[in-house]
């Protein structure tokens, strides 16, 4: 029965994708099509585009993505803890235990954030 919870999700995926494609098909049937050489050029402020569009990009994006993976996974780990936190510290009378435990976990990650900060990886434009 639990898997049934996700039934509507499936229905939504199918229906909204169907809607999106349907609008594209309707547009395809209604719209004019008159492509020519100049129209198919990519926009580059009015000049003829030069070089490759699929070029190298800034390495900083890569570092941000790495940091994101760390912190996102960490946030996911915090969710189950957040759900039971109040119950653990009150009903189960564990007191400070759950809070301290999470503080240690987050503390380790914050050291990591401080390290990245100190290394200048949070700086979009690096001075070096």
């Amino acid at each position, binding site marked *: *029965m639990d898997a*049934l*919870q*996700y*039934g*509507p*999700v499936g*229905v*939504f*995926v199918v*229906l*909204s*994708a169907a809607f*999106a494609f349907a*609008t*594209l098909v*309707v*547009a395809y049937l*209604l*719209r*004019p*099509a008159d*492509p020519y050489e100049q129209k*198919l050029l*990519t*926009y*580059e402020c009015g000049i003829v*585009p030069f070089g490759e*569009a*699929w*070029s190298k*990009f*800034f390495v*900083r*994006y890569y570092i*941000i*993505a790495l940091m*994101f993976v760390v912190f*996102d996974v960490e*946030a*996911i780990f*915090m*969710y189950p803890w*957040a*759900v*039971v*936190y*109040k*119950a653990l*510290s009150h009903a189960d009378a564990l*007191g400070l235990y759950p*809070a301290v435990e*999470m503080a240690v976990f987050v503390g380790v990650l*914050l050291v990591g*954030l401080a390290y990245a*900060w100190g290394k200048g990886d*949070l*700086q*979009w*434009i690096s001075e070096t």
Partner: protein
Amino acid sequence: MSVLSAITTWLRDALEGICQRYGIPLLAVDILAWLTAAVSVIALVLLIVLFFVYLERKVSGYVQTRLGPMRVGPIGLFQTPMDALKLLLKEDIVPRGADKILHTLGPVLFFVAAMLGYVVIPWDAKATIARHVDLNIGILYVTAVASVGIIGLIMAGWGSNNKWSLLGAMRSAAQMISYEVPMLLAIICVVMQAQSLSLGQIVNSQQGTWLLGWYCWRPWLWLPLILFFIAATAEVNRVPFDIPEAESELVAGYHTEYSGMKFGLFFLTEFANVFIVGLVGATLFFGGWLSPFGNPDPLHIPGFFWLMAKALAIVIFLMWVRWTLPRLRVDQLMALAWKLLIPAGFLAIFIVAVVLLYV
């Protein structure tokens, strides 16, 4: 509402009767219910989006002491339907050398991801989409599907074969993943308070005298509230965080090479995302479908109305912010997320954790 629920109960019983008689599994009734619900929610969202586009132009107009659209229909009401029609009739230009499949799939995926968030919104006391649905991972699910949309943006930016598009897509991806972290942290605070991930449960735990039970009245949840709205504004790429489509530096960002209905899908999705920020914000902090005059509502106004009113208020607030704050530079944007909001998010969790020990 009671008439409506009587009709649906009767319909359901009738359909289940038919199923039993002909030996069709009862799941068929559920699927039919989901289909009906999904169609109505998608229709509602599309209508709301049309209205929001109009509203945005009106609000922008009034902020700048002009009237906004006035010509098409009474007080310009038909402006956005006409714009939608125009987009439908416009030529679809796919630049040479573009990856055609990615170019088409990008906007579709972006749209689907945005619509998926609507599955778990509790519209009324007993009405999420259908019978089985108050997903017990509710809020986590919303943030999860919201980040799927980023893949659509990257597809669009990469598939366009245009430098501006690629840069815009990279920037919006960096921005959206950066601001997702403070948003997740802010939501954790609410989850700790409500002790549940289900949006229905979160609303239920906000019941109290009149509107005093809402989470916006608890001082230890103010920091998460502020964080949530800053991060959510960035998530939906609105000013002051509209770096991905900063006209003055990136032309139009990831949708530079889009025209016609594909552009229309991007446009539609952006406003659908704004609406979901309104709905989720209202659900997390402003009591969702709860009436401000006590529950059940003394005037018998359906909860759906209150949820919409709150979401609308939040959306108007976002539009107001748009004309109040200047756009951030890309380096300032990243610094704000990583150096201010994320440490503040951990601080917020710490505060809530300490307060909950005593409350």
